[in-house]
């Protein structure tokens, strides 16, 4: 199963993860 997020955000929004990284509920995904 997979979850796809699609969202509008300011252009300075940055993901704070790396491709392939394991992540858990509530952990940082991105921030402005």
């Amino acid at each position, binding site marked *: 199963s997979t979850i796809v997020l699609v969202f509008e955000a300011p252009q300075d929004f940055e993901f704070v993860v790396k491709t392939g990284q394991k992540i858990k*509920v509530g952990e940082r995904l991105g921030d402005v």
Partner: protein
Amino acid sequence: LADAWNHTPTKWYPLPVAVGALLLIVLQYRRTRRSEKEVQLDENGLEVVKLKGPWQKAYDAFGLSISKTYCFTLHFSMCIDSYFQVHVFGAFPLKRLSYVWGYLNSLELPVWFRPYGFKLYSWIFGCNLNEIDPPDLAHYASLGEFFYRKLKPGARPVADTVLVSPADGRVLHFGVIRDGRVEQIKGATYSLDALLGVERHGSPPPASIEFQARDQAEVLDRDFADINGIQYSLQDLLGTPCPPSGSAEGGVGSPTQELPMPMPTKHGEQTDASVSPDAPLQDVVAHEAGVAAEMGVRPFLDRAQGRPAGSVKPGHSLFFAVIYLAPGDYHRFHSPAAWVVEKRRHFVGDLFSVSPWMVDKLADVFVLNERVALLGRWKYGFFGMVPVGATNVGSIKINFDQALRTNVDRRRRPPVGTFEEAVYTSASPVLRGQPLSKAQEMGGFCLG
């Protein structure tokens, strides 16, 4: 055959380096062609998503009546082409397999067996048994129940960033959406419209359900809302509304004002909407969808700002992130941000595997599979979350949507390529949707 197999001599010889180089060039050329493929549109100007490849004609002509045995045999003899795999996997009765898988995993297990069985499963798939609630493995009657387990309170601390992970899993991909296309893997994209769906101009959605969503929010006054005990300012929750032309205030931040909602026209001028801002949401959505279709933009609507959200605010972009949940992961999902879900679209599709290997091999897998698109808005504008089903986890649950039924029997399924839509009309006249706080549990994936 046995004689030929046993007596035909095998002669091994090295391939010249040039052949290997040529093969790499051909593969790179095909990958480039795939990324630049022509988009096929239907009579409404919407992209048609369909299987592609050398077997397309035969597949179109005979559909699933092509001998599955034949395809199965071919799969093992010709499993060298990702396009071909689409057709082979499409011929497998994945939905039926998913039903059977779900049924088997709903069978009640003997109490004495449960701890051993679940410990074995956890050892194989890497589940952390220290964080499950309740911790007694004998409490889980079936594997399906164990799969949909809860976590102990506080097991997942919530970060203070605006966006947090909605699930346990692996980040497959993320980035910026350009030209309305989402990158599945490097060089291969799929259409955002195909993933989320668009309203058909001039015709209603295939099926529309309107019901009162379970109201979990209370608007304290004009400026604050309480969602499950957490207070949000309406501006933080929904964003700062752009004032309509000719007025200083308006939109969601000031719901009591009777201001006409400005709607952009084809020529970029502003004109009054033909529906009141207080009209039922579906009327506004239908009207705005028509305007958006006329303008040729995607009708993700931002009611608060009186503009199609497909055209993002100046200085904004559309982003995406894909998170894959492995079989051993906690399979409930949570809200990745504070946002309001306005509608959901249930797309009935196939149930291909969505493992990283398959995502790499199978183009458009997220568009082909059964999925639930939850669309709404957050403080920066449009926000959407799409749980995508797979063969082993075909059932998607949404806690606040009791009417949703996924992976249903074939006889009751709507036509492929269509979606069933529900509009969440909250009791709150301000939020107009299902509000969710950050990290609030939203639903999950069930076995089968």
